[in-house]
């Protein structure tokens, strides 16, 4: 029976006395219970943030979709040129949210491998950590302090302004973010980004009346901010829902561990008691036979 109880606790590789194992199990049990409390409260917090984010996203969706309409209707295509590609990877600073950051990091990595002349503007620390080791040269700008509070248009405008001020030139561009589908699923999507030259050379642009370069410039700058805002909103909702799911799974797993550990604890406790009883009884029997 003792060897069996030792096998139930695999991390105790050597046979230790029953009492010490009991203490270790109870310490472990307490820590797993604490972790379960933490993950449960994180799930509650994410659920609240998710409801708010989803509400704001519903209001922002017509704005975001409207901002992309012109590029679709005017059939703007990527510029033919060698100025390289610009990727704006939209994510956030905080982890424990499932595959949100890693899916974006993965796509950026494959893109850079396919197209080495790529510059990346990173919104959010987590993706920076993923890309920094191998692709530090391609990182043009990093935006931090993202994700703590819901995004407002001013934030997107700030990022757009910095991108414009830095004078990055590109022939084709895209914004990479996680589009929200349902509470349990999101999809990493890309929105195309067109440079001013690409817009000026669009096939259907002559249909549009009385346009000069000033109007095109203001239009592209404003729509960059609008598209960034929309992608931030979508990403925030995906992140919160993903974190909710992840913390929920963590709580369930912690619950299972607690059940198993409690079983082990009780069995070990009973084993210890039985062993003590046997010691006492055999000691008493030995005394009797001696007498």
């Amino acid at each position, binding site marked *: 029976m003792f060897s069996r109880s030792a096998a139930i606790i695999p991390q105790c590789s050597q046979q230790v006395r029953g009492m010490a194992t009991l203490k270790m199990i109870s310490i472990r049990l307490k820590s797993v219970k604490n972790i379960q409390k933490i993950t449960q409260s994180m799930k509650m917090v994410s659920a609240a943030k998710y409801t708010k984010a989803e509400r704001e996203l519903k209001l922002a969706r017509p704005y975001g979709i409207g901002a992309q309409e012109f590029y679709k*209707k005017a059939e703007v295509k990527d510029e033919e040129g060698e100025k390289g590609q610009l990727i704006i990877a939209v994510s956030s600073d905080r982890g424990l949210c499932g595959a949100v950051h890693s899916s974006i990091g993965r796509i950026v990595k494959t893109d850079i491998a396919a197209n080495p002349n790529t510059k990346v503007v990173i919104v959010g620390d987590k993706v920076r950590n993923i890309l920094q080791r191998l692709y530090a040269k391609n990182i043009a700008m990093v935006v931090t302090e993202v994700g703590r509070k819901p995004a407002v248009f001013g934030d997107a405008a700030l990022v757009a302004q910095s991108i414009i001020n830095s004078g990055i030139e590109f022939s084709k561009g895209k914004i990479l973010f996680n589009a929200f589908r349902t509470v349990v699923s999101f999809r990493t999507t890309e929105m195309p980004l067109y440079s001013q030259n690409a817009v000026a050379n669009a096939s259907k642009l002559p249909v549009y009346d009385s346009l000069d370069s000033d109007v095109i410039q203001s239009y592209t700058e404003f729509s960059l901010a609008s598209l960034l*805002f929309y992608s931030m909103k979508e990403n925030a909702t995906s992140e919160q829902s993903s974190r909710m799911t992840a913390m929920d799974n963590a709580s369930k797993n912690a619950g299972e561990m607690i059940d198993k550990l409690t079983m082990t604890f009780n069995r070990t406790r009973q084993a210890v008691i039985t062993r003590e009883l046997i010691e006492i009884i055999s000691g008493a029997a030995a005394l009797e036979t001696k007498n």
Partner: protein
Amino acid sequence: MERMALTRSALRLFSGRFTQACQVRGYADAPSMSLTFAAPSQVLYNNISVKQIDVPSFSGSFGILPAHVPTLAVLKPGVVTVFENDGSTKKFFVSSGTVTINEDSTVQLLAEEAVPVDTLDISAAKELLAQSQSQLASASSEVAKAEAEISIEVSEALVKACE
């Protein structure tokens, strides 16, 4: 052609109106246009069919009727008037933004901030104007001057909208 007609009939289904024009194909007659008027935090019109829209833009204020020539414009601080199909008019104050009129008579009016005009308070607007004017007087750098001038332009338009 088919794509435009499909979009148009889809938009009409969207706005819940089955007009006879559904049967008609062709670019020349578009009896109504579909407006999407949104700000980052609110939706005012989402693919709603309207009769006319007056917008204030940097290249002058102009009215948009169905089958308006496609164009792009940048909005100036001012009042946008929407004439709906049932005859009612709604006015909104916009701070800035862009307007896109596409070939298939869809209009996207994206404003940075848009509020109904009747929620504006004229005394607060006048106070804002006074504040921005004093800001311009005390502005030192080019950037600060430009920012003060922008806020003067917006507050002047606000005051005008309230009257």
